C-alpha cells in the first residue's frame, strides 16, 4: 500500500475520532440542557425540551446531515463540513442522551432531595452537590451505548464526502480492488475503536461509583440495552 493511501487512512481515522469526541462533547451539552429542562417546573421549558428530544429522535441522522449541508447554505450560512457533521451527530445523539439524563436524575432517591431542602440548599446547590453526583453514575452505562452509536453514526459523513475512516475505506477499495479485505478491515477498525471507548467508559464508571462508596460489577461486555 502506497504512502499516499496510508495518509488517507490516517486522516480518516483522525477525523472519525474527532467527530466522535466533539460530537459526544457537544451532544453531552445538549443532553444535559434538554434532560434537566424536562424536569423543570416551568411548562414552557419542559415543552421546548420535549420538542427537541422528540424531533431529533424522529429524524434520521443521515437526513439531518444532508439537511445541514444542503439546506443551511440556502439561508446564507456556510457550514464547515466537519462542523456540520459534528453538529448533526450531536443534535441526534443529544436527544437520546437527554432521556438518559432525565431518567438518571429521576432515579436519585427522593429522600436525597428532601435532605438537601432540609439543609436549606439553594436549588442550584441541590443539583450540583447532591443530585447530579449521584445521577452521573447511573448515566454512564447508557452513555456508553450512546457513544458507540455515535461512533457508528460518524460513518455516515462519508456519504457527504467528508474524509472519515469509511471514506478512506472507499478510496482504498477503489485503488486496490481488495473489496472484502478493505471492508472487513474497516469493521475490525471500528470494532477496536469501540472497544477502546468502552474500556474508558467502564473506568469512568468505576471512578464515579467509588466516589459514592459503591462498587461496580467487573467485566467488559456487560452493556445495558440501547434505547431506540
Amino acid at each position: 500500500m502506497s504512502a499516499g493511501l496510508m495518509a488517507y487512512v490516517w486522516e480518516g481515522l483522525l477525523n472519525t475520532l474527532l467527530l466522535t469526541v466533539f460530537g459526544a462533547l457537544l451532544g453531552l451539552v445538549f443532553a444535559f440542557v434538554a434532560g434537566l429542562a424536562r424536569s423543570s417546573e416551568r411548562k414552557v421549558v419542559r415543552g421546548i425540551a420535549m420538542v427537541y428530544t422528540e424531533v431529533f429522535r424522529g429524524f434520521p441522522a443521515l437526513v439531518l446531515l444532508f439537511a445541514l449541508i444542503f439546506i443551511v447554505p440556502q439561508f446564507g450560512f456556510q457550514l464547515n463540513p466537519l462542523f456540520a457533521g459534528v453538529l448533526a451527530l450531536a443534535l441526534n445523539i443529544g436527544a437520546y442522551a437527554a432521556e438518559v439524563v432525565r431518567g438518571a436524575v429521576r432515579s436519585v432517591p427522593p429522600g436525597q432531595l428532601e435532605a438537601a431542602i432540609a439543609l436549606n440548599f439553594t436549588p442550584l446547590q441541590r443539583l450540583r452537590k447532591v443530585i447530579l453526583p449521584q445521577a452521573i453514575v447511573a448515566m454512564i452505562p447508557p452513555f456508553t451505548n450512546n457513544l458507540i452509536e455515535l461512533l457508528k453514526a460518524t460513518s455516515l459523513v462519508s456519504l457527504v464526502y467528508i474524509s472519515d475512516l469509511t471514506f478512506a475505506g472507499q478510496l482504498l477499495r477503489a485503488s486496490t480492488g481488495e473489496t472484502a479485505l478493505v471492508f472487513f478491515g474497516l469493521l475490525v477498525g471500528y470494532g477496536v475503536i469501540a472497544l477502546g471507548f468502552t474500556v474508558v467508559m467502564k473506568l469512568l464508571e468505576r471512578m464515579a461509583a467509588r466516589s459514592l462508596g459503591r462498587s461496580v460489577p467487573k467485566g467488559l461486555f456487560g452493556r445495558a440495552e440501547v434505547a431506540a
Partner: protein
Amino acid sequence: MNFQWNLVWDAVPTMLDGLVVALFATCIGYVIALVLGLVFAFLRRSGNRWVSAPVGFLVEFIRSTPLLVQLFFFFYVLPLIGISASPLVTGAFALGLHYATYTSEVYRSGIDGVPAGQWEAATALNLSTRRTWTNVILPQAIPRVIPALANYVIAMFKDTPQLLAITVVEMLGGAIALGSETFRYSEPIAAAGIVYLLVALLMAWLARIVERRFGQVRV
C-alpha cells in the same frame, strides 16, 4: 431566503415511492431481526462455551460496528461468493442482521427476567427442555419484551436512508435524485425529512399503544 415550499409539495409523490421502499426494507429486516435475534439469544445461552463464546463475540462485533460499512460489505462481497440479490434485499438483510444483535439482547433480558422458580417447577414436573421453553419460559418472556421490540422497528425505519449508499432509492435517495435533476436540493431533502419525521412519530405513537397493551404481564 430562497426556499420554495411549493417544491417541497411537488416532491411528495417521489417521497411516497421512497416511503414504500423504506417500509418494505423495514418489514423484511424486522422479520429477520426477530427470528435471527431469537436464534442468537438461544445460542448465547448454550452451556457449550464453543458455541456461546463465538456467537457472543460475533453479536458484539456486529453491534459495535457501523451499519453503513456492513451494507457496503454485503453489497460488494455477496456477488463475489455467488449470491446475487437485489440491492433492496441485500439492504434488508444487512439491516435485519444488524438489528438482530439488538433484539437478541432484548430476548435475553426477557428470558433472564423469568423467575428461577419457573425453571425449577418445570424440572420438578419432569418437563422436557423443549416443552419448558415453549410452554413455560417463552410465554412469560416474550410479552415482557414486546415494548422494547416495538421500539426497534422505529429505529430500523430511521436507518433506511443509509440504503441509498447501495443504490436503493428510498426517500432520501429519491430526494437527491430529484435534486440532481432540478438543481434544487433543499426542498426535496426537506420533504424527505418531514415525511421521515411524521412516519417515525406515528410509529412511536403506535408503539406507545402496543406498550400499554402488552406492558403489564398477564398473570
